[in-house]
């Protein structure tokens, strides 16, 4: 929940309880737990069997992504993104630290809100998962061949990258926008002069070339708060829809001052029109400072590069590129149905769910059905784009997903329920309670042309009495509903890591087929790789000692190193020589003020160690690799500065010339 602080949200929920009762009474029986045994059977994945879907749940303030199996709700892996992971060295090793560089320096944390799977032709293709960093504006690419973050791009002129990283139907772009308008370029101005200096910003980022993310163009917008986005498709292909609130342009006590206007706006951006303007030379390059970080596929070493300019486009100089659609009461989600005809807005404080028609919008633009303009951007008439309103849906509509069978499912934060309604007739047909205060909800493929409409997952902010208590801080949760029948049925309730904002899920087959099982040692281009035990060695350059080591069941080579002196920095470059699935080796040394290494087969990783005292210090494998894992160890001898002990490692080539092929 990015909009309201938790305590406020509880107060809000309390104040609205009276209103909420009316809704709460209708149709509550629909998700009764009468068929508990039946529900249990439908989420039970027997030992040795596998889940039907991968679900990627954003970790919120944890800065990471949780990978779960559905329908079981079992946690499979946590992928560090904007975070450090001592478990495997992510964000600690020389190879991965550049991934967390920003123009503000090394930032090992962010607030990760939304996930977006890459698409081909409007359907999830299982290549990449994109995520956003809200606080220090960034987007990241996770490669689903190996479930690892491989690219991070910082966004200049943004503050609170919330409407991100939603993807276009062929992954040409992911988007970013600014939740907090700020002076552009940023400068020292009085906050009270918000209306004069503060600007909004929407960026389109090229995303279909791994390692080559860049900002294609940046639209400079009125100083509102930009919130969420979705790409059009079908009739609305080439458009992107962004909600905005605080059209009042308040700069203090927004909970009151930004809730004054009867309507705020959805910004409809015709990105094809912007592309044409850029081609026609209507953009201007502005000086900025941001970072692009990526992991080289073959060396598996990341690099951070500085970028210093961005192409900016003023909507007024590119007519036909942006239109505002009036939308009731601080809209949150702007969700496009599978056909691309309808855009559903979730007005947090609205008493209806407005549904815009993109077909009507295109006609209204043609007819110039404008009610005015905002800073030169045309505002369409509400009635001219409206397909209809869902009446009495519940309280606090936020997000909508679709089952591909003509129904929409909207999360109701305040009345804490999922509401199912018919996209054509706009009638509510079912409602199911959530425990408690659902934010986003997710139907696997719910944002694509062909949803996998078997389940809806509610992502809840509050759990209160639902689990064993763990002190003041409680878990957040996800709840899985079966939506194959007329009535939603609650199947499963499971705790999540961090706060799950949005999530995606995808048919497991689209991902399992492209799994990397290990990295090829022959293709390892790490500058300090040792492709066999013959290539290991110890070298000194000034006060830095490089140790090229190999790990294979069940020994390191070299395993004894002498000649290190106090004041040296020791770099252990450890290559895992294994070429088999599920055989990582770990590496740790006593007193290292960093994390361990976890080295995948065929990979090289570096541990940096500055010995602080004289003596002999053990190294060992930390991942139970084999029956003789406990024997996988060695020593480093540290002598006084200026000692005459020769630098050497007992590199040897055993009779078995393993690792040479």
């Amino acid at each position, binding site marked *: 929940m990015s909009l309201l602080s938790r305590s406020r949200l509880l107060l809000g929920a309390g104040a609205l309880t009276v209103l909420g009762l009316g809704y709460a009474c209708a149709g509550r029986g629909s998700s009764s737990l009468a068929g508990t045994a039946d529900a249990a059977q439908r989420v039970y994945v027997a030992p040795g069997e596998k889940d039907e879907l991968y679900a990627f749940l954003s970790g919120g303030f944890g800065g990471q992504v949780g990978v779960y199996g559905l329908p079981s709700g079992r946690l499979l892996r946590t992928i560090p993104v904007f975070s450090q992971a001592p478990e495997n060295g992510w964000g600690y090793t020389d190879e991965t630290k550049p991934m967390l560089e920003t123009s503000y320096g090394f930032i090992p944390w962010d607030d990760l809100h939304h996930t977006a799977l890459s698409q081909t032709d409007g359907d999830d293709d299982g290549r990449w998962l994109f995520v956003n960093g809200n606080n220090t504006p960034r987007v990241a690419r996770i490669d689903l061949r190996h479930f690892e973050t491989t690219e991070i791009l910082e966004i200049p002129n943004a503050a609170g990258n919330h409407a991100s990283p939603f993807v276009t139907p062929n992954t040409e772009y992911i988007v970013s926008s600014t939740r907090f308008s700020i002076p552009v370029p940023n400068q020292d101005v009085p906050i009270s002069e918000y209306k004069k200096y503060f600007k909004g910003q929407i960026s389109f980022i090229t995303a279909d070339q791994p390692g080559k993310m860049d900002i294609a163009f940046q639209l400079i917008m009125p100083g509102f708060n930009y919130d969420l986005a979705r790409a059009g498709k079908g009739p609305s292909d080439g458009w992107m829809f962004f909600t905005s609130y605080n059209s009042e342009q308040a700069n203090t006590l927004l909970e009151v001052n930004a809730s004054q206007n009867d309507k705020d706006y959805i910004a409809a951006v015709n990105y094809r029109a912007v592309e044409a303007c850029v081609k026609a030379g209507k953009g201007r390059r502005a000086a900025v400072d941001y970072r692009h970080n990526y992991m080289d596929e073959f060396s598996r070493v990341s690099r951070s590069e500085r970028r210093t300019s961005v192409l900016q486009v003023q909507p007024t100089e590119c007519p036909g590129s942006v239109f505002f659609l009036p939308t009731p009461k601080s809209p949150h989600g702007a969700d496009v149905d599978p056909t691309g005809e309808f855009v559903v807005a979730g007005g947090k404080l609205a008493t209806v769910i407005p549904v815009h028609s993109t077909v009507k919008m295109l006609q209204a633009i043609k007819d110039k059905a404008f009610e005015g303009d905002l800073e030169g951007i045309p505002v369409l008439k509400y009635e001219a784009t409206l397909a209809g309103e869902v009446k009495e849906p519940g309280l606090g509509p936020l997000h909508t997903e679709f089952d591909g069978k003509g129904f929409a499912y909207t999360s109701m934060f305040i009345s804490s329920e999922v509401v199912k309604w018919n996209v054509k007739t706009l009638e509510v047909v079912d409602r199911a309670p959530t425990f408690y205060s659902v934010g986003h909800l997710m139907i696997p493929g719910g944002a694509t042309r062909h949803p996998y409409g078997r389940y809806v997952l509610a992502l809840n902010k509050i759990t209160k009495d639902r689990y064993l208590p763990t002190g003041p801080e409680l878990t957040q949760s996800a709840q899985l509903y079966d939506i194959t029948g007329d009535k939603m049925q609650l199947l499963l309730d499971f705790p999540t890591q961090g706060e799950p904002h949005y999530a995606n899920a995808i048919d497991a087959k689209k991902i399992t087929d492209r799994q990397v099982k*290990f990295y090829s040692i022959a293709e390892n281009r790490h500058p300090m790789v040792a492709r066999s035990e013959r290539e290991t060695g110890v070298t000194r350059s000034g006060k830095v000692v490089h140790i090229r080591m190999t790990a294979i069941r069940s020994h390191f080579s070299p395993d004894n190193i002498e000649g290190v002196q106090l004041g040296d920095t020791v770099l252990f470059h450890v290559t895992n020589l294994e*070429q*088999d699935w599920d055989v990582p080796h770990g590496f740790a040394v006593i007193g290292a003020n960093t994390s361990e290494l976890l080295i995948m087969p065929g990979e090289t990783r570096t541990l940096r160690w500055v010995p602080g005292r004289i003596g002999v210090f053990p190294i060992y494998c930390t991942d139970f690799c084999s*029956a003789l894992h406990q024997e996988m160890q060695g020593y480093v001898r540290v002598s006084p500065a200026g000692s005459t002990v020769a630098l050497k490692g007992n590199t040897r080539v055993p*009779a078995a010339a393993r690792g040479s*092929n």
Partner: protein
Amino acid sequence: MTARSRWFVLVAVALLATAYVLPLWRVDLVAPQYPEGLGMLIRINGVGGVKPNDLNSINGLNHYIGMKVIEPDAIPELKWMPWILGGLIAAGLAVAALRRRVPLYLYTVVLLGVLGLGLWDYRRWGYDYGHDLDTEHAIIKIPGMTYSPPVIGRKKLLNFTATSWPSYGGVAMAIAAGLVVAASVATLRSGRRDPGLKSA
């Protein structure tokens, strides 16, 4: 020799030729930690893994029990077996061209002999790897335990179950041998009935 026998020999020669591309023998190893299995394919001119790194993994495991590294380049048989096969094919073609009894009978004996020798050599090779262990450096030493894979069949070797069967090329060779024997038998019988046929 009869026309049918001649066709039998020609088909047998064609089957023998497939052994240049098809693996002769397959050894599969399955253990709790290797549910997907590791495997070796024995070809006329090499030993390889079923999956790209299987041989490497098998060698990695074998070092625990002190087994020698399986290095295809160090196995001399793999160098000259393709030539022997070539000789068998050439001889088969000659037998079919000559259409005489005695060369056919001789060829039958030689073919069976060579295939038998090949099997014996394969068994000897397996025995040697399984028994000639580096006991000084072996990590796991179990008194009396040896690790020869079966020639045909299944055997438990510590945590691994080893299964060994002829592969496509091996089956093709067996059928070829059967056809050549059948050709000889048919020729023998027809010779008794019709002494007018060509003979040596």
